[in-house]
């Protein structure tokens, strides 16, 4: 449409070259998309999408939090679950679509903030811009009449503004003296620091994910593990972690203590551990809840605890197996009622001579109507309720099975049969039909320990602090530009001082502007009073030394 306006151009229409046009069109298209992506509107939409994308991650069970809950969901919703799984809804936070949203957001952020950073760097080196032609158009503006001559009136303004830590420049345009002042460039710096620190945060998180690993293991008192993936019960590691990268250390659990309040609230869990390179004694340390061991980027946590009941099994031929035990997992934290299974595949000669005890452990047991329950998390009167099975456990069948429970398919197939059950206190035994006796001899405590390595962690913390600092700067500081222009008053020979303020940032500008104009009025009046004696001889070419 606007092409029609300049007639000279219409006379010689530049024929658009055919070949580069495709490239240029593509370039134009990309540029437009880029502008669209880096617009604030897009940022808002992407922020919303990010919030929305996180919602299913909290409403559906997540593998990263609890594999068991996901399995349960599969069992409860056999048709729906596979569909949801296809959509990564059980791994929301590592899903490609979640990544797509935050990567787009961060690309938009960089595209938006980098140009602003350059502009800000330029603004730091350039003086405040000239005053707008009409000061009265500014949101806050006033006119102050004064008997002072124009340069002196502006001197007063400059002084007031310098006290308020403004950068001030004086200019003269068309014979009229004017002044521009500015403060609060830190606000913009805060904005840039905030947004760029968010990028740093994301990078630190990514680094931690790629080069970090963690492993968990149950260790009974007196036990020990070394930092290798083969030893851990469960472990996870970043894509760039090799088994050989793991810090060569071993951790031993010397003693574990759980303390309780009178009302049986857990008060503290502490573990005395040793920590050191393999083959060495290790140095002692005490860790607990809220108090992990941190050494050179590696950390050891106590994440839980429990009991491993101990049994002695005596076979009919007199051979005994002393103090065999297995960790029972707590099913109820408040009473430490625990469940587990002890599997003894190597008792007899034959594959069918295996024994297993599946059971329930109560640190302080109470039997009512033959049912054992736990009434106290402390091991005051430990009891077990066991069911004994004999037959083939299926351990070497090639299928993985949980160490904490029996393979029920072996029971269903009749290869493992129940041969007896009993409630036992410490020291009591039960005799199975074939003459085997099982004695409950006591318990050991175990701790669930976690070994973590996350090289990104300190960087994440540093970035988070920068985010907060930038945020405070951006939100709490004010950016303010003050303009003043002194024009000769037409009537009485004095000056009319026009003042206008442009603020960006928190709060209401009006009261602050009122305070500024009040101070200016007072200062102008004071200056006028001071020069009153020599009044009348208003020197026209006042060559007072002024910094510009």
């Amino acid at each position, binding site marked *: 449409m606007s092409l029609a306006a300049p007639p000279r151009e219409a006379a010689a229409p530049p024929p658009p070259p055919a070949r580069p046009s495709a490239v240029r069109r593509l370039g134009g298209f990309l540029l437009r998309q880029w502008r669209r992506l880096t617009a*604030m*509107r897009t*940022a*808002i939409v992407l*922020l*919303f999408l*990010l*919030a929305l994308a*996180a*919602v299913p*991650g*909290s409403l559906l069970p*997540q593998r*990263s*939090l609890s594999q068991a809950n996901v399995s349960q969901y599969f069992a409860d919703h056999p048709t729906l679950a596979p569909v949801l799984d296809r959509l990564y809804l059980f791994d*929301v*936070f590592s899903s490609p679509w979640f990544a797509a949203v935050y990567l787009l957001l961060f690309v938009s952020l960089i595209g938006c903030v980098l140009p602003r950073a350059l502009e800000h760097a330029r603004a730091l080196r350039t003086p405040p811009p000239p005053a707008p032609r009409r000061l009265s158009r500014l949101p*806050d503006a*006033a006119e102050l009449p004064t008997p002072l001559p124009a340069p002196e009136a502006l001197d007063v303004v400059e002084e007031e503004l310098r006290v308020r830590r403004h950068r001030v420049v004086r200019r003269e345009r068309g014979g009229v003296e004017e002044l521009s002042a500015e403060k609060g460039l830190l606000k913009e710096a805060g904005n840039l620091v905030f947004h760029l620190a968010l990028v740093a945060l994301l990078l630190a998180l990514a680094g931690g994910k790629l080069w970090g690993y*963690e492993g968990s293991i149950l260790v009974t008192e007196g036990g020990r593990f070394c930092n290798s993936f083969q030893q851990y019960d469960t472990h996870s590691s970043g894509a760039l972690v090799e088994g050989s990268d793991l810090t060569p250390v071993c951790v031993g659990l010397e003693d574990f203590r759980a303390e309780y*309040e009178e*009302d049986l*609230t*857990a*008060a*503290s*869990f502490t573990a005395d551990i040793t920590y050191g390179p393999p083959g060495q004694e290790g140095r002692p340390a005490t860790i*607990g*809840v*809220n*108090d*992990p061991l941190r050494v050179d980027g590696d*950390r050891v*946590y106590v*994440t839980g605890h429990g009991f491993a009941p101990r049994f002695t099994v005596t076979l009919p031929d007199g051979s005994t197996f002393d103090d065999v035990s297995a960790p029972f997992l707590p099913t109820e934290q408040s009473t430490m009622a625990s469940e587990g299974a002890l599997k003894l595949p190597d008792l007899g000669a034959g594959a069918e001579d295996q024994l297993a005890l599946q059971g329930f452990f109560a640190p302080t047991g109470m039997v009512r109507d033959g049912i054992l329950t736990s009434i106290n998390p402390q091991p005051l009167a430990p009891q077990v309720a066991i069911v004994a099975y004999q037959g083939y456990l299926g351990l070497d069948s090639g299928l993985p099975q949980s160490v904490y429970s029996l393979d029920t398919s072996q029971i269903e197939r009749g290869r493992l049969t129940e041969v007896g059950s009993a409630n036992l206190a410490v020291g009591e035994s039960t005799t199975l039909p074939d003459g085997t006796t099982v004695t409950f001899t006591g318990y050991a405590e175990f701790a669930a320990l*976690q070994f*973590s390595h*996350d090289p990104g*962690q300190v960087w*994440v*913390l540093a970035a*988070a*602090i920068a*985010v*907060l600092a930038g*945020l*405070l700067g951006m*939100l*709490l500081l004010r950016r303010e530009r003050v303009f003043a222009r002194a024009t000769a008053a037409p009537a009485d020979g004095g000056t009319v001082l026009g003042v206008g303020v442009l603020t960006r940032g*928190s*709060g*209401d500008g*009006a*009261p*602050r*502007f*009122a*305070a500024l*104009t*009040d101070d200016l009025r007072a200062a102008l009046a004071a200056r006028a009073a001071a020069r009153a004696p020599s009044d009348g001889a208003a020197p026209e070419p006042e060559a007072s030394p002024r910094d510009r």
Partner: protein
Amino acid sequence: MTADQLADLSDTLFSSSVGLYSLAVVAFCAQLAFGRRPARARELVGSGAPAEPGATAASAPGADPPAVRRWGRVAMLLTALGALAHAGVLVARGLATDRLPWGNMYEFATAVVLVAVVAFLVLAVRSPGLRHLGLFVLAPVVVSLVAIGLFLYVEGGPLVAALRSSWLAVHVTSAILGSGVFLVSGIASALYLVRSRYEARGGDGADLVARVPSAASLDRLAHRTAVFGFPIYTFAMIAGAIWAESAWGRFWGWDPKETWMFISWVVYAAYLHARTTAGWRGRPAAWVNVVGFGMVLFNLLYVNMVSTGLHSYGGVD
């Protein structure tokens, strides 16, 4: 006093504060009922006349007839007394249990509501025009306190091991502060939505809405409180991550509570953006703020009561 007496005192104070707030609601109703339509004079403040700091365009106390001012003062006094009793609930709890009084959901929710009331009081003392908001802040406060008393009440007790950390003070206190301030911000934005529709229709319609501060000042109030709350909330999130690192062995694990805090945080960031973006200013931004408010509430209630995460110290059965 013994711990039991202190615990009883705390419960008594809870009922007292609900009673005082209810009376304040009545007084705020009376203030609105006796008020006449706000004078145009309001718009004059802010055009350069010396005004007290923090005053907003809506505050022209002189414009109210004496009966209104009297009821307004009574209401503010009752609110302040209620807030004292309300603070007493937590102090007595803390003394009775010998720990910070935000170890379970009852205490946490009570504290959040207290922050909202105090934030309102501070704002209303600084800019008297905002007293007209009293009914809309105090009525939800009474409703939530009654609900907290009915559904969330638990006896005070010692903290479980994982909560015994000085990060409890840092993380939970800042989360309470942030959530309480966001509550006020959300109410302001919700009222803004009502009021701006009323103003767009030319200012006739429900009388109640006529007495609410102008849409412009509600918008400013919502923004100022959100700007105040956002860094606090951000800090709460960072402190939570630091605590989680030492308590649970990872600083961020997308536990439901963490996820919802993240969601609320992102929504508030969107609100702050929307406020400065053409096409989003005004009603769309206010909606974003209301959604953020919903997220905070959801995080407070649903996530604690229904979902099972590591944060399940709520103490609600």
